[in-house]
């Protein structure tokens, strides 16, 4: 399906372009891909080709950048994307218990998505919040100083939260 920016995204894209010298438009690539992702949920080939056209670069340049970065998603996630930091400080404060709890309560492990697409799970690297470990980022929201009790409450809340159509971000 051909991709095109919505009116809102078009306005935000114009703002992004203002940040960089006109002869270095490619600098706008990562912010532009975030806009595609926000509108569509993830990056499709059509979305990437569209940005290539808008920035006067080749589609392979876009792909080269898009595939390098973990936050630029090439496939959809669940409505609540559980990003569990399992790096050293979080590990020392019990992050593996949180992974186990996700398995028990949501039936998924790292790299998986629940059948109803409500939850997906990913092990992530240090989120720069080690002093308040263990940390889980749900979509963009940080949840810090988690205990098995507080994480269990959080998962139950997300489990019962009303959701509309699956959303990407």
């Amino acid at each position, binding site marked *: 399906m051909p991709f095109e920016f919505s009116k809102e995204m078009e306005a935000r894209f114009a703002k992004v372009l203002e940040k960089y010298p006109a002869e270095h438009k490619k*600098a706008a690539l*990562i912010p532009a891909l975030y806009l595609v992702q926000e509108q569509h949920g993830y990056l499709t080939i059509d979305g990437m080709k569209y940005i290539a056209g808008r920035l006067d670069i080749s589609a392979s340049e876009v792909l080269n950048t898009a595939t390098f970065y973990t*936050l*630029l998603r090439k496939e959809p996630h669940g409505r609540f994307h559980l990003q569990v930091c399992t790096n050293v400080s979080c590990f020392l404060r019990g992050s593996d218990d949180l992974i186990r709890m996700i398995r028990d309560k949501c039936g998924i492990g790292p790299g998986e998505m629940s059948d109803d697409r409500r939850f997906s799970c990913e092990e992530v690297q240090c989120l720069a919040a080690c*002093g308040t*470990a263990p940390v889980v980022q749900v979509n963009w929201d940080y949840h810090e100083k988690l205990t098995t009790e507080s994480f269990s409450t959080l998962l139950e809340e997300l489990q019962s939260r009303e959701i509309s159509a699956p959303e990407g971000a």
Partner: protein
Amino acid sequence: MATENPGTNCLLRDGDGNDYTDLKVYQKAGGYAKLKERLTMSRDDLREEVVKANLRGRGGAGFPAGVKWGFLPKDTDKPVYLVINADEGEPGTFKDRYFLQKDPHRLLEGCILSSYAIRSNACYIYTRGEFYDEIQTIDKAIADLYEAGLLGKNILGTGYDLDIYQHPGAGAYICGEETALLESLEGKAGQPRMKPPFPAIVGLFGCPTIVNNVETIAAVPVILDMGGDNFAALGTERNGGTKLFGISGHVKKPGLYELPMGFNMKKFIYEVAGGTLDDRPLKAVIPGGSSCPMLTPDEIDIAMDFDSLKTVGSMLGTGGAIVICEPTSMIDVILRISRFYSHESCGQCTPCREGTGWLYRLIKGFKDGTARPGDIDTLYNAAEHIDGHTICALGPAAAWPVQSVVRKFRHEFEAAIQNGGLAETA
């Protein structure tokens, strides 16, 4: 975030009840008060204060900030850029986030003063993508400054023009390395450049560029307020000022603390951070981010500054200490660290791309019970062959902690072979 502060209250003022993200509140506490005066100072005098302050780069390498600024070409017809490294991602490190989240104007005032000092009219803040809320905070603070006439054309009638832009990262630790950061800012994959040329000569968009860490630049207004000499005097001889030290892992009061450079590490763990979790016996300390060689309990009676930690074969790094207690297995710890570097290698240099994965698989063998006796030496040698054979310092950063664990905790690897693997610990 912990707020206790046995040092001075120069940088960390979290928990004093004020919301410094509000420009008015920041100004009421003295922020931007002398901006006009400083933007008419001689640029050399301004830089001289930073040189006098002995402000060593807070991104990990500890290079003196004022000295680095002096590497810019004296007369160039190209634009000069200041780029702020807000890609904070070294495991154990969570200090830059404090400024982005709670005191954004400290950073922005530092950006204005530093840009002025280096003759730059455009400054980019490269913020890691996961910091979604912090990115909004910084964007709002920048917008407030334009509105107040503190950014843009002819700031406060001084004739000085400056624009500050924020650019989001997208989840790649390597983009914290300054030349990978520049590639990423230009829209490319974050693969480090060969140096020389250094960014001061050929940086962003081919122009002279200074890359500095968030905390480095946030210290600049503080230095000008108290004077370079006074800031320097807070620290030790070649390590000026105070710094934000983080502590995480097995301690009673993990968090962020402002301490003078050279503060004793043992005191930091046992007094400031309240001692080890449940009073468990201390096993090892990673002094300043996961790439620093580990210290054993008999090595921690040491001053935390760039020079002292070198004398025990480690580094101050970012100042984010990780404390590890019994009965945690060092194999479990180094497994997480080696997985991280293997995941984050950009793939450009073969010794790093292949070597970091090899280290991880060898260590995993000790955990899973598939390791053979010769593997301990293989592991050490593999690490040795990465170190020094790569374009950037990610390779060495992956190698050093592995080597330190093999040297200091060899018995755990031997036991893992004997026992056919490892039970889970934490």
